[in-house]
Every structure is written in structure tokens, then in C-alpha cells.
């Protein structure tokens, strides 16, 4: 059943991209800064990481450079939104357009290169044993270090936000910057920190795409994953654990898209309305239709949340998308 193992392994790898980008966006939004530029930042990370690895042969260096370039690029968004108090949505869209344009423009020469990608590793000690578990073993226990890193990041981000002073300040700035300011929190610095962390993780996500998931560079290779990451944060209602769940769910969707032909699922013909059911099933499993699932899922979550609370948006950081000026309103 190596198909299934293969399938699960691809899901893990796909999810890693979403975990990284999603957690980064989560931190940024927790501090009140919406970053719609994730798609563009990921592309920058993907290209710069790829180029570095091709030139140096070192995967870790490429991963790191990709992250740092993503971080540097997000600084522009941070400056516009935090210091210049610009409209966060427009700035974000501009960053995506700029990132896409720049990487397409400068990445033309790199599309024909190829690399062998991050090597797979097993976990130390117990790894060799776990890998032997049929089906699940190779899928879950032989992955790249980046995959393990992403998984580790989920509890780390949780700890960072909820069990450190910096995290406390990030949350407070995203809820009520005026109160945070009164309490002596450096609101601007904290917002910048959150945006830069978001950019760093988006850069990592992009680098993972070109170095591990696809092992090549192609213009526009993120194919909307950055947007899915933004949707993911809303879907997860700004909770790290739910980002993990959502990342795997969306990762599953994206992998299913590519492999749905091989699935050949169908209702047996003696089931009543088999033809109709199979028609519906075909529709639901159609790759392009599946591509909408992350967005539809997010919209559903939005409806449900608002429907259930009269004071809607109970989980959204209260000061999300608002610029802060130290003047009384």
C-alpha cells in the first residue's frame, strides 16, 4: 500500500507549508496587523532559498536565507502599516503583487535548475523502529527536518504567546493598544516584532516549498497557498492548535487534488441512486472543486462564529486592522 504511505507523506509535507505560514500570520494578526502579503513573501522566500541552495549546495543555508529575506520583505509592510498607519489590506495586497512581480521577473533564469531536496530523516533512537510500522511508518516518521520543525513550532508558538511576557504583550497590543501603551508596553516595537516573525515564517514556508516539497523553482509556485494561510488563521480562530488541525486538513485537500484520479472511489452500482451519488462524488472530488474547500471551510467558520455570538468576533483580536496613534480618540 505504498500509495497510501506516499499519500500521507505528501500530506505531511503539504501541511508543513501551511503550518509555517499560518503560525506566522497568526502571530502578526494577534498583534493587530493583518498581513495579506503572505503569498508574495512566500515567493520571495522560495526564490531566495532556492538560489542560495543551488549556489552553495547547502539546504539549511537556503532555508535560513529564505526566511531572512521573507522577514526583510515583511519589514516594508510593517513600516507602511505601523509607522505610516496605512490601510493594512491594501499594503498587504501590494506586497503580494510586488513579491509576485519581483520573483517572476528575477526568477526567470532559475526555473530550469533542479535540486534533490532536503534529505529525509528519521527521529533519533526510536525512529528506526517507528518507520517499520506499515503504512503510517514511512509517512509520519520519515520526513525532512523542516517537517519536524514545523510540528515542534506549534507548541512553541503556543508557549510563546501564552507563557511569555513578549507573548502577553503581543496579545494585549492586538486587543487594546491604548491600554497596553498605558501599561508601559512599547506598542510599535511589539507590532514590528510580530510582523517580522510573520515574515520570517512565511519565508520559511516558501523555502520549504522550493527546497523540499517541489524541489524546484517555478514562477508563482505558491499557487495561492499564501492566501490559504490567511484563511487558515481565520479558520483556526487564532489558536495555534487549530492551525495545526486546519493545516493538515487543508494539506489533505491539496494533496487529494493532485491524486484524486488515482483514488477511483465510487459507490457500488447496487446502492440506490448510485448514478446520482457517483455523479455528486465525482463533482466533490474534482480537483478544481476541491481547491475551493479551504476557502469554503473558512467562510463556513465565519458564518458559524458570527451566528452563534451576538457580540460576534469574540475570538478575533479586537484591534485587528486598526492603526495605533498615541492620541486620545
Amino acid at each position, binding site marked *: 500500500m505504498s500509495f497510501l504511505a506516499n499519500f500521507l507523506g505528501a500530506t505531511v509535507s503539504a501541511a508543513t507549508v501551511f503550518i509555517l505560514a499560518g503560525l506566522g500570520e497568526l502571530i502578526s494578526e494577534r498583534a493587530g496587523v493583518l498581513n495579506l502579503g503572505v503569498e508574495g513573501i512566500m515567493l520571495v522566500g522560495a526564490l531566495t532559498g532556492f538560489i542560495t541552495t543551488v549556489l552553495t549546495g547547502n539546504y539549511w543555508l537556503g532555508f535560513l536565507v529564505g526566511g531572512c529575506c521573507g522577514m526583510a520583505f515583511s519589514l516594508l509592510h510593517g513600516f507602511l502599516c505601523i509607522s505610516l498607519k496605512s*490601510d493594512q489590506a491594501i499594503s498587504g495586497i501590494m506586497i503580494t503583487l510586488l513579491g509576485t512581480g519581483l520573483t517572476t521577473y528575477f526568477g526567470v533564469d532559475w526555473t530550469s535548475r533542479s535540486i534533490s531536496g532536503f534529505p529525509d530523516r528519521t527521529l533519533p533512537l526510536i525512529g528506526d523502529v517507528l518507520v517499520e510500522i506499515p503504512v503510517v511508518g514511512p509517512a509520519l516518521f520519515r520526513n525532512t527536518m523542516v517537517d519536524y520543525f514545523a510540528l515542534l513550532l506549534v507548541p512553541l508558538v503556543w508557549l510563546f504567546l501564552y507563557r511569555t511576557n513578549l507573548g502577553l504583550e503581543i496579545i494585549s497590543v492586538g486587543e487594546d493598544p491604548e491600554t497596553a501603551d498605558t501599561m508601559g508596553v512599547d506598542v510599535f516595537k511589539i507590532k514590528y516584532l510580530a510582523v517580522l516573525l510573520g515574515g520570517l515564517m512565511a519565508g520559511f514556508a516558501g523555502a520549504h516549498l522550493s527546497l523540499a516539497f517541489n524541489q524546484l523553482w517555478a514562477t508563482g509556485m505558491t499557487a495561492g497557498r499564501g492566501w490559504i494561510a490567511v484563511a487558515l488563521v481565520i479558520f483556526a480562530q487564532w489558536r495555534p492548535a487549530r492551525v495545526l488541525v486546519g493545516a493538515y486538513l487543508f494539506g489533505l485537500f491539496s494533496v487529494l487534488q493532485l491524486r484524486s484520479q488515482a483514488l477511483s472511489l465510487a459507490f457500488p452500482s447496487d446502492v440506490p441512486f448510485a448514478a446520482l451519488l457517483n455523479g455528486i462524488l465525482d463533482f466533490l472530488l474534482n480537483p*478544481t472543486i476541491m481547491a475551493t474547500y479551504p476557502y469554503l471551510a473558512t*467562510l463556513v467558520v465565519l458564518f458559524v462564529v458570527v451566528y452563534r455570538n451576538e457580540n460576534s468576533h469574540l475570538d478575533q483580536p479586537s484591534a485587528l486592522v486598526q492603526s495605533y496613534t498615541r*492620541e*486620545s480618540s
Partner: protein
Amino acid sequence: MQFGVELTPRSEVPRWLVYATPVFTILAALAVSSVALLALDVAPLEAYRVLFVQTLTTEFGIRETLVEAVPLILAGLAVYLPLKAGLWNVGAEGQLVLGAVASTWVGLNVSLPAVFLLPLMFLAATVVGAIWAGVPAILKAKWDINEIITTLLLTFVAADVMSYLVRGPMQSPTGNFPQTAILPAAAQLPILPGLDVHAGLVVALVAAVLVYLLMTRTRFGFEVTFVGSNDAAAEHAGMSKTRVYVLVLVIGGVLAAFAGVAEIAGNQARLRAAFEPGYGFTAIPIALLGRDNALNVVLAGLFFAVLFVGGDSLSILMGVPAALIEIIQALIILFLITAEFFKRYSVDISTDLRVRGVRADAVGEDH
């Protein structure tokens, strides 16, 4: 010695700043993009000459520009109108795509003479565009759900739905390509005599005039302006914020859908799965540049049309990747945002001044 930056909100914007802004932003964007050109060993001035002068002085260039301008103007209007009410219609791209889908479907499957078929196609686009923008509108008006998020999400859904349809039920029976059959002659927009451009241009210009009249001559336009400026005061005046929000977004959706119709029925004559023109996103800087009135939107649309057509020439003649235009476009937005900042605040940079955390209160407040 300490370095301090003090921001004071401006009470009024200096005249010269208001008029100079569009010009400055475009010049700045072009200037910064020359760095990208230099990186590829291309002389910027030469490149810009090809980009602008060539496009505007050849018959081919002018015709292509006008064709390109049609969807850009319509999409620009689709973002401009909600913006006047304080809403961002970021989903113009999705509304555009679905307008293309609906009208193409009608064009391929309904046989009527052109004089009935074409209006029917626009009608189909109207319905679809209205729904696709109407849903986020109601969500915003009733439950204050951010319209940026909802219109954006729906855009991606629309693109996928279109792709599915074009590869599936709407796929052309001849050959196995992800595209529809060519629209029959009755379903294609006629060419305007003399200009050699399709009638979509008329639609775009009429739409611009109508939007202009709507905003400057009607009561509804007054309400839109008022709600966009101060919705609390508007409600005190008895205006319905809900009605305004829903109507501007629905009209915007319809306009964007028309852009889709015009592009397919006028220019491309068939719908391809790869139809992802990005006009809906370009519409954002167009609306920003044309922010003051609908006729400026036309000018901004024409400008971007020149950019796109010129960009194609540039890539063919000088090997510069067409992505340069995307970079220029993004930079225009960047500088527009920056200019916005300078319009709102005057900046004093001082040394030897400790920056004080002054809380400025309105005059005459209690206590």
C-alpha cells in the same frame, strides 16, 4: 542629543499636494523600477520610450490600449464606487470571472440573434455579479463581517469554479483543451467602425458616465458620499447604511461582471481555464488613482492599459520580462499609500527634542 519625529495631523491638505500626488507616484514608481531594468542591463529611458511612446504613437498600440482599457475601466469602477462608501471591493476579480462564465455559457447555449443575445449575456452577468458581491455586502451590513476577507475568499472560489466549468461541462467538444468553444458570431460584441475596437469600449465609457452622474447628480450618490465620510452622522440624518452598502457592492459586482463579458465577448471570443487576468487587482490602484471622480478612473484605466500593452511590446522587443509591469503596478500602490500618509500628517524631524507622549485632546472637552 536625541532624534525626534513629531507627527501632526494636518487640518487641511495643501493644494499642490493633492494635484501632484498622482504624477509623483507614477514618476516614483517608474524611477524605482528602473533599478530592475538596470539589473538586466536594460537602459531605463530606452525601455520607457518603447513602453509609452511606441504604444501611443502607433495605430496598433492605440487600438490595443483601448481594448485593454475596457475591462480595466469597468473593474476600476467596480472598486471605485464601494470605495466612495468606505468599502473595499477586493473581489472584483472573482465577480469579473463569473461574469465571463455566465455570459459565455449563455452565448454558447442560447441561439438568438445578436440584438437579443448580447443583452441576455449581460443580463446573466448582472445576476451573477450581483449575487457574488451581494453576499459579502449583506454579511458586512448585517453582521459587520469584514468585506475584504469575504470578497477575497469568494474570488478564489470563483476562479476555481470557472476552471472546473471550463474543463468540464463547458469544455469545447473539439480537441481536449481547457477552453470553451469559440463564441458564435451573434455572441460576440460588434466592432466599432473606424476605431477597430469592440463595442465593449462603449459599455465601459457609458458605465463611467453613469457612475459619474450617479455620484454627482443623484440623491443616492449624496448618500454614498456621506456614508463614506461619516456613517454615524449619516445615520443621524436618517440614511440607511445597510442600503448604501448593499447597493454599492451590488453595482460594483455588476460592473466587474460586465468587465468579464466585455473581455470574452469582445476580445478573446472564448473562455480559457487560464483566464486569470488580474484586472480585479489592478483595479485597486486604478480606483486609488481615480479616487476623486469616475472620469479620473477612466484616465487611470487608460494609463494602466498603456502600461500593459507597452509591457508586452517591451518583452517582445527588448526581452524584458512582462513581470516588470507587475512591479511597476505594485510600486504605484506603494507610493500612493506613502503619499496618503504625507497628506494626512505633516512631519517634523527634530534633534535635541525629547519626544513626548502627548495625548492631544479635542478643544473644549470636559474636565
